Each structure stands twice: as C-alpha cells, then as structure tokens.
C-alpha cells in the first residue's frame, strides 16, 4: 500500500514538474516576446515605376524605403522589420517610438535603441528634410500601434500620383508644384567654367571646376566668388555657380572642386 502511495506521489510530482517546465519554457526567450510584438512585415512594391521597400506594422504601411548604398529597398525594409522584432519589448507603447540624433544623423529609436537611420535619399523622395521625414514615420508608426497622431497628419498611407512618397504624408502645396524642378541627385557630372572673384584681396579671373547633379551642372555657365580676408587672420569664401555669364542666376546643388585664377586688380 505504501509502495502504491509512493508511486502515486512520484507520478504526481513528475506531472507537476513537467507542467512547471512547460510553463517556464513558454515564458522565456523570444517566442513569448514575439507573441506580444505587433506584427511586422516587409515587402517590395513598385510606385511610379520605382522599386521601393515597405515596412508594415499591424498591416499598415508605416515607411517606404529606397535603395541606398549597396542595399536594395527590399533589403533595407527586411533589416528594419528584423530590428523591430528584436528590439520590441513587452510593455512598449506607441510613445516608445521617438526621433533622435546620432553622429549628426537623424534616427528613429525604439525604446532607446536604434531602429533605423533616416537616409537623405528617402527624404528627397518625400521632398522633405530627414528630420521632417523621421517625424512623419514616427507619426505613422504610432498610428499603426494605436497611439495618438498629430492632428495635421493623416494616418492613412498616401498613394502618390507622380512619384514615390512616404506613408501618411501628403506633399505641401508649395512643394507639390515644384516637383519637376527637383534634380535627380543620382548622376554626378563635372565641368570647367569661367570664374570671377571679387573681394578684399582684389579682383581675379580664371577657371573653376564645378561638380553636382548632371542636369544642374549642364546649366552652369560661370561661377562668382566672394572673397573676404580679415587682416590675414580669417578668410571667407563663397562660391555661387550661375547659369549666366553676366548675372547671378544661382544654380543650386552645384559646388566647386578646384580653381585657377589670375589677379587682375589688387586692393
């Protein structure tokens, strides 16, 4: 009889032990964390003939990424989705998605960990600065997580009519009208043009090599330089690429890499 009791007690203890082990196994490691992580997905899409990577949280597109460096849009979206999975902690809310700065780059943080760096190429596609885009993505992420969104922004991802843009962002009217004027910052070119320099040292004439987006470089016909020297202690030089030989028609996005000048007037 006592043997039977011992046997039953052992069996009971073994069952209890198994239950405890199963429970503990369920509570530790990533499976439990994944259970509470808002569902994240990365996919590749095409907008206006351009391939983009989309990141979806709770089935809402929260950001659209473009190719940057050696990474395709899909690789970037996958990387963000993977980081989201690994960084998310139980107890996180929409307010844990914040915008920050790391080494002069604008970044999105989840908790206090880096989720992604906002690249200029994405900001350019959205016709905004990297900080503005980070704020847009933060709002879209918070909306997808069920948090509050800024009153001025739409939480619904917009479908662009003329070009790729970012989830939840509509172009401001003044920028929408200027869309065609934006240069394609992908193909660089150089050119040598005349330069006229004026300032405290005197007047100089010569040649300057300019570089920038091909479309803009082609428009440059001259460079004007303002040159100021303060008692041989400090100098200020400003280069203004112009689309005219005789007037200041500034061409944006173009800069100087070298000069060769002859001083015609000395002050």
């Amino acid at each position: 009889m006592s043997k039977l009791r011992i046997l039953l007690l052992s069996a009971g203890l073994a069952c209890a032990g198994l239950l405890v082990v199963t429970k503990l196994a369920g509570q530790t490691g990533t499976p439990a964390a994944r259970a509470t992580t808002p569902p994240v997905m990365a996919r590749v899409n095409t907008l206006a003939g351009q391939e983009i990577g989309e990141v979806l949280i709770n089935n809402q597109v929260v950001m659209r990424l473009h190719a940057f460096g050696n990474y395709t849009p899909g690789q970037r979206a996958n990387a963000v989705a993977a980081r989201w999975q690994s960084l998310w902690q139980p107890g996180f809310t929409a307010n844990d998605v914040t915008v920050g700065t790391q080494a002069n780059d604008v970044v999105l943080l989840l908790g206090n960990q880096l989720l992604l760096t906002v690249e200029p190429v994405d900001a350019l596609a959205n016709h905004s600065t990297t900080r503005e885009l980070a704020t847009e993505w933060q709002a879209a992420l918070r909306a997808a997580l069920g948090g509050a969104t800024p009153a001025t922004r739409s939480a619904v991802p917009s479908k662009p009519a003329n070009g790729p843009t970012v989830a939840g962002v509509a172009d401001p009217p003044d920028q929408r009208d200027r869309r065609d004027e934006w240069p394609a910052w992908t193909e660089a070119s150089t050119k040598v043009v005349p330069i006229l320099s004026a300032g405290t040292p005197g007047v100089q004439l010569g040649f300057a090599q300019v570089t920038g987006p091909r479309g803009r470089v082609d428009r440059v016909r001259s460079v004007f330089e303002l040159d100021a020297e303060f008692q041989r202690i400090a100098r200020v030089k400003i280069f203004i690429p112009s689309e005219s030989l005789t007037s200041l028609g500034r061409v944006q996005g173009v800069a100087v890499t070298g000069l060769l000048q002859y001083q015609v007037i000395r002050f």
Partner: protein
Amino acid sequence: MKQLRRWSLIAGMTAILLLAGLASGLFVQPAQAQLGNILKVGGIVLAVSAFGGQINDFINKALGEREAGFAGASKVVPIFSVGRGTYVGAAQVVGLPADVRTVQGVGALDLRLGNLSGTALVPISTQRPGRNGLSRVGNVGISAVMDFRI
C-alpha cells in the same frame, strides 16, 4: 641615511630641471605657441563638429540652397588649408547625398605664383589625415569656406 641620500638626489634633480626650464625660456615659448595652436585647431574642429548642422542650415538659408538642404545634399565639415599659410575652419560641401554623407573633412591646397593662384579643394572621408591615408570623396564640391590662420 639611505633615504636621506635618495631625497637629496630627487631635490637636486628637481632643481636642475627647474633651472633648465627657466633658462630655456626661448624654447618654452614656442612650445606654448604650439599648444595654443593645437587648442585652436581642436576648438575649431570641435565647434564645427558640434554646430555643423546649424551652420549648414544658416548657409543654406543665406545662399538660397534650400533644395540641397531638403535633399541632405549639403553638410558643414572642418577644412584644413595649406600652401599660403595654414588655415583651419569650416567648409560647406555640396554633392550627391550618398557621397556627402561620407565626407568628414576637406583638404585644401592653396598656391600662388606671382599673380597666378590655384586652389584644389579635396573632400575626404577621414578627419585625421595620415592615420589611414587620405580617402578622397568624389561627386562632392565646396560652396562656402570660413577659416582662420594658425
């Protein structure tokens, strides 16, 4: 006795070093000037690194480079200029965003021969020229410079 001898030796050495230091005032002064230059260079580079973003925004507004600012195609970095004196300061670089991002400084070579002068402006991807060699960044130019003689 042994300890007294050791203290005497230390005191003697200290006195000799002090006298040598006083006597070589001429050599001490250049060292101070060098220290001043090092501090000046360090201060300028630190200021440019810390306030580069604000300086960049200011220049973009002042020069009407709004598009470059939007596109992340401009940045302010330290510039080191040699040739007609040594200058250190800040330079705004403009170019393709992916390349601008990698620029850490600008090296400038400024030469003059009579009335003829030439300047080469080289954006580089390291703030410490010489440590890992110079690494030139292409597709990037300079739109504004402000530097100080050291």
